[in-house]
């Protein structure tokens, strides 16, 4: 599905990238070429700011070569509430990202461990979770349970997709239900939080991992910081809702850099999937 890219050649995207495309770091203001940024896994070489990693790149970074077999590529968003502009909005993001939905799922192996992987891509409508996202993740978890695979989900989301109203809320129950069965089958689930993981995604599958990892400095929260501030009329503590803050407050097991992610997940699966550890 995706050509394998190693860490070394991830920057070689020249053919599909116009010349002279520069990226200004939103954190330190440093200007670097897109190619250099890609070569560094979209982490600013100056200040270590983590830019959003598209799901395709994430999958290539993580999975064993040529093992990713994408699932449910045929699911399409509908407009169940007849919400004004919703269909056009989704179409715009399909065009912009080349994805059908923020969620991409598939079977793969990671360090030889059979896995069902789900990855959310924040570029697609803030990776909000609607029916398609919930269905894809649920099917991927069910696939993991049936085929005795590890389930791994990389979360990033603005929350539930309000254009699908209560149906999007119910995706929280649906995904957690599938994870309950996965746990009962004695199989591992690793949740990886990336920037930003918020709202209904934080309040469902993202925070019930057997192990919860997070990328450095990513924002993790239920309510947005503005809402918290407006509700409480208090100053927010330093580092509020960052991965480091949530590590300190006992939600996150470990912060893992993008460079180390594949290696650390393989290490973890070695403990969590004992049948294959030998």
């Amino acid at each position, binding site marked *: 599905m995706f050509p394998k890219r190693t860490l070394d050649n991830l920057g070689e995207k020249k053919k599909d990238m116009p010349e002279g495309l520069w990226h200004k770091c939103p954190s330190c203001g440093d200007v670097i070429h897109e190619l250099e940024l890609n070569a560094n896994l979209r982490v600013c070489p100056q200040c270590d700011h983590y830019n959003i990693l598209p799901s395709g790149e994430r999958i290539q970074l993580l999975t064993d070569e040529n093992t990713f077999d994408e699932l449910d590529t*045929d*699911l*399409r*968003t*509908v407009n*169940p*509430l007849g*919400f*004004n502009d919703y269909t056009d909005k989704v179409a715009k993001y399909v065009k912009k990202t080349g994805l059908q939905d923020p969620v991409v799922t598939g079977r793969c192996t990671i360090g030889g461990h059979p896995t069902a992987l789900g990855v959310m891509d924040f570029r697609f409508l803030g990776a909000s979770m*609607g*029916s*398609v996202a*919930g*269905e894809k993740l*649920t099917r991927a978890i069910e696939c993991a349970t049936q085929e005795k695979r590890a389930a791994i989900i990389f979360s990033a989301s603005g929350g*539930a997709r*309000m254009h*699908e*109203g*209560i*149906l*999007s*809320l*119910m*995706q*929280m*129950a*649906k995904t*957690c*239900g*599938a*994870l*309950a*069965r996965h*746990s*009962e089958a004695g199989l591992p689930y690793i949740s990886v939080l990336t920037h930003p993981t918020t*709202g*209904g995604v*934080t*309040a*469902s*599958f*993202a*925070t*019930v991992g057997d192990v919860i990892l997070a990328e450095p400095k990513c924002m993790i*929260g*239920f*309510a947005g910081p503005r*809402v*918290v501030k407006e*509700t*409480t009329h208090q100053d*927010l*503590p330093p580092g*509020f*809702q960052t991965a480091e803050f*949530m590590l300190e*407050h*006992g*939600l996150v097991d470990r912060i893992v850099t993008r460079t180390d992610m594949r290696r650390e997940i393989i290490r973890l699966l070695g403990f969590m999937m004992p049948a294959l550890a030998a």
Partner: protein
Amino acid sequence: MKEQVLEFEKPLADLAIQLQTLRDHSANQKIDCSDEISRIEAKLDETKKSIYENLTAWQRIQIARHTQRPYMLDYVEHAFDDFFELHGDRHIGDDHAMPAGFARIGGHRCVLIGHQKGRELKENIKRNFGSAHPEGYRKALRLMKLAERYGIPVITLIDTPGAYPGIGAEERNIAEAIAFNLKEMMSLKTPTISVVLGEGGSGGALGIGVSDRVYMMENAYYSVISPEGCAAILWKHREHAPEAAAALKITAPDVEGLGIIDGVVPEPQGGAHHDHAVAADSLKKVIVEAIEDLGRLSHETLLEERYQKFRKLGEFEVAS
């Protein structure tokens, strides 16, 4: 407490005043005004009908948030026979926004959990306006586990604008407290019944709402986001909340139409606040019936049906 008259009910209040004035006048002056009185009475009935049978989503939300609307503990008083409240999550503290304990209804033992709001400021501060902290959700789960152990059903009464978006709540992982409940409720080996009493605010509602049977009171709403929050994002201003409320399809009939709930619990005309006892009778009937229905199912059937109930929710297309 002063009676809260909703904007759209003002014509009714005006007619009621007219009627009262006329009656007083008639009595004081000993004049026969019966023709005029019956004319106004008829008009009042007609106006009531035309208002209450054509409620907009926004009007229903006003009813759902009415300060005289029966809250969880009012239903405890009218519909339940005993309530033995238990406190605390065993770790941090007790959440007064979410009372929970053993209860009896229609001769059945149960564990009862719900959100509680206050009517005036002092009580509302104690109840945190019905917005629970992580401790509430963890206390709820602790009691659900007790219900499972004793083989008694769990009843949850949902009435919250949302889980509390505070600093402490975030620090103590409110999202995880909700998520863990979603997962655990799916495997709870005892019947579970939820009713949205008033406000079904997003994850804060669902956090005690993954049940075998889910109902809504006729004028309750159940939504992924508050109409104000949705309006602020999509309409760029909270004033557009009435439009957002309609677009989100959050009223009981709309949510039932989307196949999310098992039924709508009828309220007295104009809303449950007009008659707490009648609303409670109506709620009791639905809960007792559900307890008896679910009691006939094996744990295996119960869990499979619960899983499928939520598994099937969502609308999408399969591309050819």
